């Protein structure tokens, strides 16, 4: 179990991370979502022990990473952002080097090597020089190096950048499979990527945690409104404006007069659906509704909402 407590990191005057807290349970795939520069990588770097927080703590099973760095690092596999590699080394030699420092016994290296080569699809390049591999292969070499010691915790910073769509699907499946017995933490600035891969989403904006939950939870928790678009015939403007008095939950955003119908744009809170009231009101006033479309909010709207307004609410 990982516990992150009031984590903050300042780079000089820049507050990269502001008092982030969350808990992670075993067997969870967690996605860090945020715009570029939101503080995702900084948080992950602190969790791996690469940099120290300005304040706050990270505990792995009640051991502080600051005090037991090397011990905890044995349980972590880390793929840094931009995936740095020793380009002059061969893939096999590189993984061998990693596994030596990871203290994998000599006789266990071969099966471990074959396993990651298989899982990451590195068969074709296993004995090639890293510098001569394509970007997609390099990304998977980085991933293989992060998981060769079968760690309990995998921290993957932007794991699918540089991969083509087929490879992305493969890596997604791999991450989900690994997430069954490990804690997998991945970051991305691409919402679809996170949504497709993880159980739990943590959205970070300007260094603060602005949302935390499964995508369903985020959708149901959000206090933003549903949009409703109605096309009606035989409506006059006064009646439309009076609608608010009869049905308090609606908020009229705009009214467009087209040639033979009127388009009304309405917003209403999700827990207070006024559509049947609108229908009855229309019948009463003699309108003919020819179209009524409610646009359900998706995660993207929530993400945009949370990351646009400074993200000070909805913690």
């Amino acid at each position, binding site marked *: 179990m990982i516990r992150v407590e009031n984590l903050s990191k300042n*780079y000089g005057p820049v507050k990269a991370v502001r008092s982030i807290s969350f808990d992670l349970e075993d067997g969870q795939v967690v996605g860090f979502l945020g715009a570029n520069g939101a503080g995702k990588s900084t948080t992950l*770097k602190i969790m*791996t*022990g*690469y*940099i*120290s927080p300005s304040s706050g703590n990270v505990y792995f099973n009640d051991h502080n990473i600051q005090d037991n760095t*090397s*011990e905890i*690092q*044995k349980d*972590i596999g*880390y793929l*840094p952002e*931009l995936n*740095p*590699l*020793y*380009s*002059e*080394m061969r893939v096999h*030699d590189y993984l061998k*080097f*990693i596994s*030596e*420092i*990871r*203290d994998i016994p000599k006789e266990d290296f071969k099966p471990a090597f074959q396993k990651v080569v298989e899982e990451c699809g590195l068969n074709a390049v296993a004995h090639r020089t890293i510098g001569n591999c394509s970007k997609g292969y390099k990304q998977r070499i980085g991933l293989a*190096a992060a998981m060769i010691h079968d760690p309990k915790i995998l921290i993957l910073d932007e794991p699918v950048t540089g991969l083509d769509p087929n490879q992305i699907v493969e890596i997604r499946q791999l991450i989900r499979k690994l997430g069954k017995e490990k804690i997998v933490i991945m970051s991305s600035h691409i919402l679809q990527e996170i949504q497709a891969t993880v159980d739990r989403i943590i959205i970070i904006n300007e260094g603060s945690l602005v949302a935390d939950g499964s995508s369903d939870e985020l959708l149901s928790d959000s206090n933003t409104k549903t949009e409703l678009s109605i096309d009606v015939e035989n409506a006059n403007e006064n009646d439309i404006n009076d609608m608010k008095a009869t049905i308090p939950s609606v908020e009229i955003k705009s009214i467009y007069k087209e040639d033979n119908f009127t388009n009304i744009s309405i917003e209403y809170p999700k827990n207070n659906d006024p559509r049947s009231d609108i229908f009855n009101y229309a019948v009463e006033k003699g309108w003919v509704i020819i179209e009524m479309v409610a646009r359900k909010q998706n995660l993207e709207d929530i993400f945009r909402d949370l990351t646009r307004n400074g993200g000070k609410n909805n913690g």
Partner: protein
Amino acid sequence: MVVKIMGNSLIIFRRELKSFFDGPMAYVFLVVFALLNGWFFTTTFFLYGQSDLRTLFNIVPLVYLFFIPGITMGLISREKALGTIEIISTLPIEDRDIVIGKYLSAVALITIALLSTSLHFFTLMSFGNSIDYGAVFTGYLGLVLVGAVYASIGIFSSAVTDNQVISFIIGIAIIFVFWLFDKVLVFMPDILAGIIQYLSVEYHLSNISRGVIDTRNLIYFGSVIGFFLFLTTRLVESRRWS
């Protein structure tokens, strides 16, 4: 535990040494080092007609001035520039072991380069007479020690920046200062002269080259190396607090 700690620097050492020889770097340095020393040595060796390697032992420290910062400039700065420092720093290995492993790889390459000058020793054996083998041995020992001191300065300069050229220049500058101490002694007041003489690499080297292995000289070399390796480790650790 102790075995594993040494083991970790040993893994880093092997990787570094291999990467020297995987690229052109080691070969270029070895050839240039051999050519430079060969030229300076042979042009005077047959003129003076002396049965020793003193000219060689005098010229190598000068060649070191450019040669060693060249070897060490990338040791840490390159990892910083490429970002691979993030990979090794998040492996279960102490920063100290990373520094020691890398440092020893540079010392090993310097020693290999010195071995290439043993050719001149064979020249000496075939032409000279009444050769003082002890002086040849301690001369080489002195060169290894001086190389080790300069390499510790070099790896320190490499940890200061993520730019290899800058670390090369800083390395030359610091080594030059150490090399200069001996040359400026005459201009120094007596109080300072003693201190500066003690700091001078050449002073301690000359003792050893004469065939005197004194613990005071060995302590000097050991403490300068320890000092710079300590600073290097602190610099590598400092990334956490930036």
